[in-house]
């Protein structure tokens, strides 16, 4: 086992984590601060029998990874703000087709082109609600380079197991920072592959609308002849406009994730057992929060930090439990509105305890900013 750390960038760890998980197809379009992921895949995938394609735009990139996944590949893409906006229609295509894919969105500052090289966490709502229609996805946010690797693997595992697009959304700081990482040995982390059908080819149904169900997924070219569609369909993926069918179809997109909630919703608590003040954060602000909390502890204050790793589905119950005894709940995030704070407000019995810490100018949240909210 390799226990000596390797100095690695967050984006590099995401690419390596994806390869570790078995990714064999990448399609993308270059954009700062995500391009390192594409460059690494362009070098590494051909060596492993995989395919890298630089597409004409992000719309095509999203479509191509869905197509590759239908051919049986573990497929992914990476982008940032403007590209992530272009991907939305096809993220919903992956939702309705229940196609396993992973989308990396390295979050950068500003509306539209904005500040291309600066960090932000202003896509929290877009991750969840960026698309039209009833639909549910999973989104993960790493705070360290090691977590970039681990959550990339986890993203593929969730995508494969629940047949759902999973979005991995580090902020630019985490995507670009370098830390020493002990790369997991082969076999050390669990790898999940989609369940393949075993029934007779004539009996195969690519979808299953039973609440909580996830149908096995065949690949094009296998003995199974099957369909996929971006339109409303029955379990055979043939068009179907019956309202009773549509209700079952839509509900199952949600219930399958509810059934897997324990597996999907990841948080990390630091000194949350006895805290009077709880800091809630995701991504790089977690690092500032932990420093501020340590300093406050040294000064005799009971401060804990709850790190959100799975931002969607939102870990409301986990936050509420950790905040049970807290007089104050500080939510630190790099956006103007307090997109995470709004969700925390919904899940606390007494939301008047909330204090918010926000930056929205491309600068990071520092321990000092959090210390002010603790004072």
């Amino acid at each position, binding site marked *: 086992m390799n226990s000596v750390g390797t100095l690695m960038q967050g984006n590099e760890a995401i690419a390596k984590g994806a390869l570790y998980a078995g990714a064999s197809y990448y399609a993308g379009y270059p954009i700062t601060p995500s391009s390192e992921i594409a460059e690494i895949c362009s070098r590494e995938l*051909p060596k492993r029998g995989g395919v890298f394609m630089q597409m*004409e735009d992000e719309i*095509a990139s999203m479509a*191509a990874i869905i*197509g590759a996944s239908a051919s*049986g590949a573990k497929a992914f893409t990476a982008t940032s703000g403007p590209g992530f906006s272009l991907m939305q229609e096809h993220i919903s295509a992956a939702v309705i087709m229940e196609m396993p894919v992973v989308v990396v969105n390295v979050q950068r500052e500003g509306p539209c082109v904005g500040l291309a090289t600066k960090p932000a966490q202003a896509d929290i709502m877009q991750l969840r609600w960026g698309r039209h229609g009833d639909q549910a996805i999973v989104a993960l946010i790493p705070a360290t380079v090691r977590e970039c690797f681990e959550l990339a693997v986890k993203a593929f595992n969730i995508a494969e197991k629940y047949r759902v697009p999973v979005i991995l959304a580090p902020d630019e700081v985490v995507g670009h920072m370098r830390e020493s990482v002990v790369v997991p040995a082969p076999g050390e982390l669990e790898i999940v592959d989609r369940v393949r059908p075993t029934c007779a080819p004539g009996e195969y149904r690519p979808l299953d609308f039973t609440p909580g169900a996830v149908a096995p997924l065949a690949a094009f070219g296998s003995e199974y002849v099957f369909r996929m569609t971006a*339109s409303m369909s029955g379990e055979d993926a043939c068009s179907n406009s019956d309202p009773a069918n549509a209700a079952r179809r839509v509900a199952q997109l949600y219930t399958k994730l509810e059934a897997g909630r324990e597996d999907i919703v990841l948080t990390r608590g630091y000194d949350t057992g006895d805290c009077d003040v709880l800091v809630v954060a995701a991504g790089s602000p977690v690092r500032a929060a932990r420093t501020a909390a340590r300093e406050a502890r040294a000064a005799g204050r009971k401060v804990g930090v709850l790190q959100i790793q799975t931002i969607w589905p939102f870990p409301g119950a986990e936050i509420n439990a950790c905040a049970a005894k807290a007089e104050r709940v500080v939510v630190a995030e790099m956006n103007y509105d307090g997109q995470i704070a709004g969700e925390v407000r919904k899940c606390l019995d007494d939301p008047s305890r909330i204090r918010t810490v926000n930056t929205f100018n491309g600068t990071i949240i520092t321990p000092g900013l959090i210390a002010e909210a603790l004072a």
Partner: protein
Amino acid sequence: MAHATGRAYIRREGLPHISCAGCGNGIIAGAMARAFEELGLARNEIVVVPGIGCSGTINRYLNVNYLHSTHGRALAFATGIKAANPALNVVCFVGDGDGVTIGGNHLIHAARRNMGITVILVNNYNYGMTGGQVSGATPADARTSTTMMGNPERGFDICELVRAAGANFVARETAVAGVRLKKRIKEALTNPGFSLLEVMSPCTTLFGPRNGKKTPVDMLRWLKEKALSPEKFAKTENAAAQGYFRVGTLADERADSFSTRYEAMRRRVLDAAGGR
């Protein structure tokens, strides 16, 4: 040999069809099914990728793999399907709105890459499904629901566009000529690189009546009359301006496809690693 019927590739539960009387989609889909049969393709080795539009509704009647995609993006989905499994026969079935208007960027880039896919582009001169609006293939001055006073823009010559972008195979036929269609589809499917077949097809409900073709038969007759061999086309003065178009195989090259070239690159990478 008995005539191919294409029956094995047709999903009969999907019938009766939902196309308008005189629509070309059924003829084109039938020709495609017969081409599959004559080439002896197994159903599980075929993936049809329709877009969104009247042409996309043919998925209801097909008994092969299909991925019914979004409006304009069929070729991008097909690119991923083919790149991940080059052994598949991948056919995009798209309209002129789908294929060359909203999807124009994907069309030229798939041609440039020489992706080994076949595109059957049903050109009915307008957006059928949404009520007959103007498309990037609507001829100048033609009337559509958004150009009732005549189209101020010009339409693409789709075959020229795709050929210039680097496609191996380019052909055009009309939906009137079922046997020629089948032949062209077979040629397209057996070409290793990017193949485009543009099918001039009657929109008998929307485009026809708005442009002086009152009945489906008028529209079909008009298409038949406008279809010229490349030789006749060259001899006709102002042919394009009068609505004439060339039919037949317009380009048929054998350049290596994307997948072949990718595999060669991969081998170079592995050789370089092994030789170290």
